[in-house]
């Protein structure tokens, strides 16, 4: 193989890679927060909402889980444009990612909610707590703690999947890679570098979630046991 490796050609582009990686993280953060909130609400509705709302949520989940993210991103981007709402690519990216991860979050959190025994809810009701209070104080916290590893995995996958938004020109890491490789003609090296950055970002995201768990789940931090 008579190939001259050109990693050094990429060196002047390190600020761009950094900016791209930073935007990837920002996209991930905002989509995660929005998606988690959406997913939680949907999970509560699926568990004990009115029949009609349950059907709507089920339909939403089935559509998201059976269509590719790429197509969802295109639909959000072009759909909003056709409605006359002009959003920049990054906003459309966040919206599509949040709606996507919201569906998966809902399923994961619902499994967590189902793992909280009915007797726990009964005990809460018998203390005079309202339906909403029972959810807030008795059901949601242990449910989320139990499915936390699954949620972490899902949001790491979200970070990796954000690469898809390069297709609508969101300026995250993969879009940067595409630009750099067409500038330098060092395609393979560019994607190797970006690959390594993504691996690093996966670790960073996992570390963030681990730290969050230590902060929020006081019982687990103090006792070291799982629920």
């Amino acid at each position: 193989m008579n190939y001259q490796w050109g990693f050094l050609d990429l060196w002047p582009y390190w600020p761009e890679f950094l900016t791209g990686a930073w935007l990837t993280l920002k996209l991930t953060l905002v989509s995660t927060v929005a998606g988690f909130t959406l997913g939680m609400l949907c999970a509560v509705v699926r568990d004990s909402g009115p029949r009609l709302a349950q059907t709507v949520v089920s339909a939403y989940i089935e559509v998201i889980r059976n269509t590719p993210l790429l197509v969802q991103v295109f639909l959000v981007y072009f759909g909003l444009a056709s409605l006359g709402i002009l959003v920049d690519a990054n906003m459309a990216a966040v919206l599509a990612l949040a709606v996507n991860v919201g569906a998966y979050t809902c399923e994961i959190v619902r499994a967590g909610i189902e793992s909280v025994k009915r007797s726990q809810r009964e005990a809460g009701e018998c203390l005079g707590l309202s339906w909403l209070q029972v959810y807030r104080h008795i059901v949601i916290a242990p449910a989320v703690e139990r499915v936390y590893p699954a949620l972490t995995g899902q949001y790491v996958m979200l970070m990796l999947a954000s690469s898809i938004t390069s297709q609508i020109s969101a300026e995250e890491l993969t879009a940067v890679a595409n630009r750099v490789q067409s500038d330098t003609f060092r395609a393979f090296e560019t994607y190797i570098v970006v690959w390594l950055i993504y691996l690093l970002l996966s670790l960073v995201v996992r570390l963030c979630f681990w730290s969050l768990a230590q902060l929020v789940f006081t019982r687990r931090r103090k006792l070291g046991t799982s629920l």
Partner: protein
Amino acid sequence: MSVIVELKNVHKRFGRDEVLRGISMSVRRGEVLAIIGPSGSGKSTALRCIDALESIHQGEIHVCGHQVHSAQLNRRQLRQDVGIVFQSYNLFPHLTVEQNIMLAPLEVKKMHKNEARQLAYDVLSTVGLIDKLDAYPEQLSGGQSQRVAIARSLAMKPQLMLFDEVTSSLDPQLTGEVLEVMRNLAQAGMTMILVTHEMAFARQVANTVVFMHEGRVREIGPGSMLDAPQTDELKAFVGNGL
């Protein structure tokens, strides 16, 4: 002494199974009523009906001025007047003992945090577990968990306390500490209804004992009635029990 709990001809079905076949009983303020009987007699179901955990299809239930059998019942109001302790304690595993006790006063009675903390302290002293304020339920023994569960219900200052076989899942040595708490509560004048297998305890502490068999009340009387059973069913029951 006024009657604060009254059951009139209560019927309840689970599917096609009739579990309560017209039971009636009443409890006056400050009284302790013990419900005994073999498994499947409907005792726990009766207790759960009193706190509106199960619905009835015939009859009336009056508790602390609430009409429990009515569709217009305000469950949250009822549950502030009635405290219930379950066989499996049902403590909230992700909260400390203190947080378990403070939760309802904070959320339902909108109590101030310091006031709730003081209340938790007082109520835990009553059950003798003040050193377990910051412990998590998984660090407690069965007997301790049950006492915390009692404290948690007491924190809401109910008029009536229900106990559903609270010592049945405990080892014998742990049962004593829970019964002690219940005895003290009775002596302090709390109105109590307990479903129990502890015959000696029922005899000592209860003003009235109700014997249920296959969904019906067979005998009602003071504790001493266990020494002189009238019906065959009670004769068979105490013959095996004591």
